[in-house]
């Protein structure tokens, strides 16, 4: 999609990425069709067929069986369903299972779901990560082996959404599986750039979202192994194996399937393109602003190719974001946002960075519409923006 000349340079693909034109076509076409997939007449059967074909496409693209796919309203709902649904079912089956383990750098959809369960009498144990944001598997092993029978669930994201560090999901599964503990992984940021194969992963549940891969907002899925018990969050018509009631969004699901098919089909090439753009971005920004610090795992095969998470010492991330925004360059200060009130990133804090560094950081995330011209604009604007933001200083600091 050629960018309009006045279009912003968009570096926030990890928040949401443009819907691909092929996906828009599918969505528009399907929106014009009538039929509830649960209805028994011809229109219903036609809608059901769209859903089931999409389910097969999605399962095929992710190494899952069609029956594993539970459609949801997106990643947040899938994370809630996995955490609350599996933890509740496991505790119901054995009341000793009250502990839940997860790295401290999880997305809030997982963290806050875990905390909601902790409010209902379960125990949340957040696991340490190292300075690049990777889960400490020795810590996980120690937590598990202390009393494996008391663990309801382990959740570990595939790759972190803020700094991009890939997590040792294979090791996590290995440690948990010995004790029959189910593992969930939020793979929202990984799908489309890293190879994600559900069966091969050994995971019990995996979250995926359409709008991070060129599909529409409002649709996603939780892949659930058939043996896994999941207590539903939504009750009603009994759709999706009774796990998730609600009329199926045939158009959104068809668009999701098309987006996933394209994203997975072009994954290797896309990875290569993003990696090259990111390298160019980091190298040129580091030259233009020498004091910049790069967060996350420096090893290319241990991080997402499209995320550059940078700290600008002495600057407030809010100031940088506002000045870049005014210059038509769009990025993010992090994922956490309470009523628009920027909070220091829990990910950077968990990595051992102080609050000033956490507040003085920006995430630049690349995607399928990113170009070298976007990077040129960023590199041209950044030195002036950083100088200004440094003058403005750390706003929210005591001065008296």
């Amino acid at each position, binding site marked *: 999609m050629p960018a309009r000349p006045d279009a912003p340079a968009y570096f926030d693909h990890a928040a949401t990425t443009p819907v691909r034109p092929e996906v828009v076509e599918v969505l528009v076409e399907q929106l014009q069709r009538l039929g509830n997939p649960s209805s028994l007449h011809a229109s219903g059967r036609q809608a059901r067929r769209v859903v089931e074909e999409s389910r097969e496409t999605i399962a095929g693209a992710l190494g899952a069986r069609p029956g594993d796919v539970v459609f949801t309203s997106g990643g947040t709902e899938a994370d809630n369903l996995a955490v609350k649904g599996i933890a509740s079912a496991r505790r119901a089956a054995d009341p000793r299972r009250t502990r839940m383990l997860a790295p401290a750098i999880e997305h809030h959809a997982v963290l806050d779901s875990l905390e909601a369960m902790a409010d209902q009498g379960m125990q949340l144990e957040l696991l340490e990560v190292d300075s690049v944001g990777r889960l400490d598997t020795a810590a996980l092993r120690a937590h598990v082996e202390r009393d494996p029978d008391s663990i309801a669930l382990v959740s570990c994201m595939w790759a972190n959404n803020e700094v991009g560090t890939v997590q040792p999901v294979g090791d996590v599964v290995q440690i948990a599986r010995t004790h029959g503990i189910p593992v969930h992984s939020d793979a929202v940021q990984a799908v489309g750039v890293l190879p994600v194969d559900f069966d091969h992963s050994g995971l019990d549940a995996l979250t995926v979202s359409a709008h991070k891969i060129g599909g529409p907002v409002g649709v996603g899925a939780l892949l659930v192994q058939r043996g896994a018990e999941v207590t539903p969050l939504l009750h009603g018509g009994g759709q999706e194996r009774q796990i998730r009631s609600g009329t199926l969004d045939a158009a959104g699901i068809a668009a999701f399937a098309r987006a996933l098919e394209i994203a997975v089909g072009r994954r290797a090439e896309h990875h290569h393109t993003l990696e090259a753009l990111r390298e160019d971005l980091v190298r040129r920004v580091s030259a233009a602003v020498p004091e910049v610090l790069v967060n996350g795992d420096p090893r290319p095969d241990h991080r997402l190719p499209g995320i550059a998470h940078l700290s600008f010492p002495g600057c407030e991330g809010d100031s940088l*974001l506002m000045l870049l925004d005014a210059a038509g360059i769009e990025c993010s200060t992090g994922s956490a946002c*309470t009523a*628009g009130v920027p909070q220091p990133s829990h990910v950077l804090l968990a990595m051992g960075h102080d609050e000033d560094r956490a507040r003085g950081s920006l995430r630049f995330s690349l995607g399928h519409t990113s170009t070298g011209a976007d990077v040129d604009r960023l590199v041209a604007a950044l030195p002036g923006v950083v100088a200004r933001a440094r003058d403005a200083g750390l*706003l929210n600091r005591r001065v008296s």
Partner: protein
Amino acid sequence: MRVLAAMSGGVDSAVAAARAVDAGHDVTGIHLALSRNPQSYRSGARGCCSIEDAGDARRAADVIGIPFYVWDLSERFHADVVEDFIAEYDAGRTPNPCLRCNERIKFEAVLERGIALGFDAVVTGHYAQSVTAPDGCTELHRSVDTGKDQSYVLGVLTQRQLAHAMFPLGDTPKELVRAEAARRGLSVADKPDSHDICFIPDGDTAGFLHRALGERAGQIVDAEGAVVGEHEGAFAFTVGQRRRLRLGVPAADGKARFVLDIEPVSGTVTVGAREDLAVTNLTAIGPRWCGPAPDGPLKCTVQLRAHGDEHRATVALLGDELVVDLHEPAAGIAPGQAVVVYEGSRVVGSATIASTSR
């Protein structure tokens, strides 16, 4: 000019921002997040930094068509306004936190950051007028809506601060501002005015201070020193207060009694008759001038609390202190409040009342 519009989520600041756009300025809206614990926003309490207000401010910015951001000033606000508020009550004084917020947050922290980021001025929805005098100085005047006038809480601003401040509502009565908001399609048009202290959304100042300072039982005495009651903390009292004294011993003459004095170290609160409240002299500290300081005694009017009456007076600088002689006695003057000095409608300056005498 590139200007920052401080948008509280209320009707006044929204219309002020819209007027700044109409005047041809390049306006960016900001909402100041002032609570240290954003979770507390979810309590449902109304204050000027609730989630609802941030949302209202954002929506108003959308309608006006300006960029909008939230600035987190919670630590600065806590240090400069909330802790100061508590410390002042602890010292037996009655502070005005809105004035302090204007002095240290809106027209210092926000303004200085804005200037560093390339902005020229801060726009607020205060009811006051900023006028450029022939000599180029910026003068602060009362609003044309004397009932809503807020020049008192802006009286602490210096010439530099005033030169970078815009008050687009000072020439308009409040009802017309509401009507204008409705005409502009701003959904905050019929939002009620905020009256409470924003960080005490339930309005229970005594309860807030009790939690902050703990129980500090003390005695209530009459002017002769006889104990007439007890209390759980002198901070709950303000000079001139009549209600909630709960005196055990009635006055000999049966008349109502008022707080005359608060002695913070012993926690003794002195009460007496209304006529004993009358004050003719006061001294005030930390004077700040909107323009040049007066070079001699100045015949003027003074306002001694928010929305209070004007009193004719003569003020003079004596070293670092401002000495105020009231031409007629005034009652209920609480140390910690500001004395704001006016010449006609123009604000000359202000200082913090330290002591009073009859």
